[in-house]
């Protein structure tokens, strides 16, 4: 029993020390004009590999559970910093736009990070790695290929 009480003092779960945290940061630029409404713009960091549907993205938003980091951003050039779990694979980092009234389907990704191919690209950060300068450019007149399947 004393051993168990002794164990209790260990405090159980704890946050990952900052020194072991990984982060990714950069800037978001906007060019061109959107062809339709911009109801919501959000930075999205998607971890699970599948499924990849607009409905799933929004249902996550709507039901308060997100399998990704999502934070609303303004419609102007800005910077961001996101803390990510080390040694975990993220499917993509991007900016998502809700362009219509239907929250279950009216979504598109308007920019990807690591966008050499202008499409989603998975990445993994090591513990403590601070990846900077990961910029995203939202080209409203030249949107990227969509990962979503409607």
């Amino acid at each position, binding site marked *: 029993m004393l051993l168990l*009480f002794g164990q209790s003092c260990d405090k*159980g779960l704890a*946050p990952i020390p900052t020194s072991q945290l990984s982060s990714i940061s950069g800037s978001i630029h906007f060019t061109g004009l959107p062809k339709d409404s911009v*109801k919501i713009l959000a930075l999205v960091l998607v971890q699970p590999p599948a*499924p990849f549907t607009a409905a799933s993205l929004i249902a996550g938003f709507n039901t308060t559970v997100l399998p990704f980091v999502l934070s609303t951003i303004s419609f102007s050039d800005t910077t961001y910093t996101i803390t990510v779990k080390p040694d975990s694979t993220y499917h993509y980092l991007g900016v998502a736009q809700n362009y219509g009234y239907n929250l279950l389907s009216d979504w598109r990704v308007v920019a990807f990070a690591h966008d050499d191919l202008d499409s989603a690209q998975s990445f993994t950060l090591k513990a403590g790695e601070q990846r900077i300068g990961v910029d995203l450019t939202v080209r409203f007149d030249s949107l990227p290929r969509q990962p979503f399947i409607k």
Partner: protein
Amino acid sequence: MKKILLIVIIFFILADNALAQSGRVETDNLSTLPLSGFIKDKKTQEPIGGATIDILSRDKQSLRKQITKVSGEFRTKKDGVAFFHITSLGYKDTTVTLPNGNNLVVFLEQKPLLGEDIIVTAQKHTTATQDVPISISIAKSEEITSRAPEAIDFALRYIPGVTVTESQVNIRGSSGYARSVGSRVLFLLDGMPFLSADNGDIKFDALPIMNVDHIEVVKGAGSALYGSNALGGVINVITRKPTDSLHGAISANIGTYDQVKYLDWRIPSVGRKFASLEGGLTGTIGETGLLGSFAARRNEGYRLGDDSYKSSGFAKVTTPLSDHDRFETSVLLANENHGGFLYWKDINHALMPSDSLGAVNGRIHSFKANLQSSLQSILSDHFILTSRASILYTNFSTDASVVGGLDGPHSNATNYNLQFEGNTDLLDSVYLTTGILGLYQSVNSDLFQTHHGITLGAFAQAEYKISPLIFTLGVRADGVRYDDSNSLGSISPKFGVTFDVGDGLNFRGSVGTGFRAPTIGEKYIDQTFSGFHVIPSPDLTPEKSYSTEIGGSFRTQNIFLDGAIFYSSFDNLIEAHFVTSKGTEAIQFENLTKAEIFGHEEVIEFYPLSNDDLSLRLGYTYVFPRDRVTKQILNFRPRHLLQSRIETKLGAFTFSSDFRYISKYESVDPILIQQVPDGASRVDAYILDARIAYKALGLFAMPVTFSFQVQNLLNYYYVEIVGNIAPIRNFTLRVETVF
């Protein structure tokens, strides 16, 4: 369905025979005897069948002996009689003098020995625990309320062998966690099912804590008496009876959660305070007993988006309709409004929801109403008929989305229950319990659409007593049908035996079967959660189980020991898993898992001073739960569970402490791990609670109890469910007065 009809017919034949052989009390030719007596339980007012009446002369010589009938009645001539000495297992021996009139009612007090309680759940009639061939635990009101719980599930966490994962109860590893859909433990309120019609989950927050008399936990498959859901056991919350004279109680709690140790976790905007007010009144007008209570609770929570407002009311009326009929009805109403916290953002933001905007603004509203009535009719010396009906309505809705204005999920669900149960002791050594029942379910929801279900069942159980052995044999048939789909049927037999060695030593052994019909939620859900589309599974079939245990107990005036080894086997367990649907991945419930659980459980209660000035209780449960096919450990089952309690009374002060150890889940749902950032984070749990209470005389000489308690004294951070830090250290000041 043919089997069900057969059992229904047998039930009516037995009932008819009972009436035919015994006749109604009014027409009984024994009524010419000069004295008619009834033996009843002082607390429950239930008749005590099988009590021994030693009829004594003035010099206390035994003239003859009689055994009370199932109605608790006995009759005797008065010549030469001066006293009656009444004994019954589980009750204090009582001696009364011969009354002047021709009627005598004797109330017996329960529990002469430790652990020798009277329960109603295990055999569907009042039975001493040592006469039951299966493990039982009881939580009593004094212990439940002393912890100032916000809901009944909190009280269950201290019962040996029981853990609670979110709202799902786990008895000896039977349940795991199935996303709040379906319960593998049948939950009853005063003997009637208290599971919602849509999710099949337990509405803990609705139950009237102040009016809970005790909670009975039957461990192991119990579908032979109770039907669906009794896969891993049965929990019956028994509410109080109205008192003869006017009594009332009022209690107020106020408290706060402590600050968390880690700066990363702190959220200044969370208030962390909580408070509650409960009150109740009971009494009897004429022969009608009345009881009512209310509760209002506010909890600011220790996490962002996790606060709640709760209110509830409960009322009960009991009245005798005649000398042989007793009617009881109760109504329960509960309302709740709470934040939408579901999972943490990540381990570094453990008290912040993954979507803070949605969790804070997307509040969840729920309403529950339960109306139930029972009529107990003593139809003859040998036959009691109990008719019960209940309606349980549950409703929940989520606020419209904070962006876009779409309606959130909502559901309306109603259960209509009707049961007829007969208890008879046609032969001195055989006690027969039979019953028929029906359940109609109606669900209207955007999650589950509109569906209806109907369940019909019938059961029969015989207890055959050849002292010192009692054999129990029972069987139940159930048929379940949803909409116009095919019927699902189940036959659930059981067998048990108890052996009373004497001097407080008893042994027991049993084999029981269980089944759980899939809920409307599991069959018909069609909704996207957490980024995953959950699709319907109309072809789900019932889960099945059988469990066996061998155990023994030993009790004296100051020690109670109980031990059991058990084995359970499960088939067709319904689990969520990934499937490919229309070219995309989705989640679907399917009958996937065959599992087995082996384990043992030991309970010690010790009163070293032979009174309740000092008491100790220790319960340890070991389970080895694994998939029979993959040999993998089952999800959400702690292998080790240790629960202990110590309480001491010093004058007007009472000190008590609880310690629980729950070993880390060796396996959790891989889908949840994908959904929840850092979802794999979990640890062993060590939870220490301590409290001190002081009883004083207040205004008008009313006793007032002040208590202060600290829960999770060591501020240990652990999760019961993925991505949810369990309550952190919190302090409660409680004031309670009774009059």
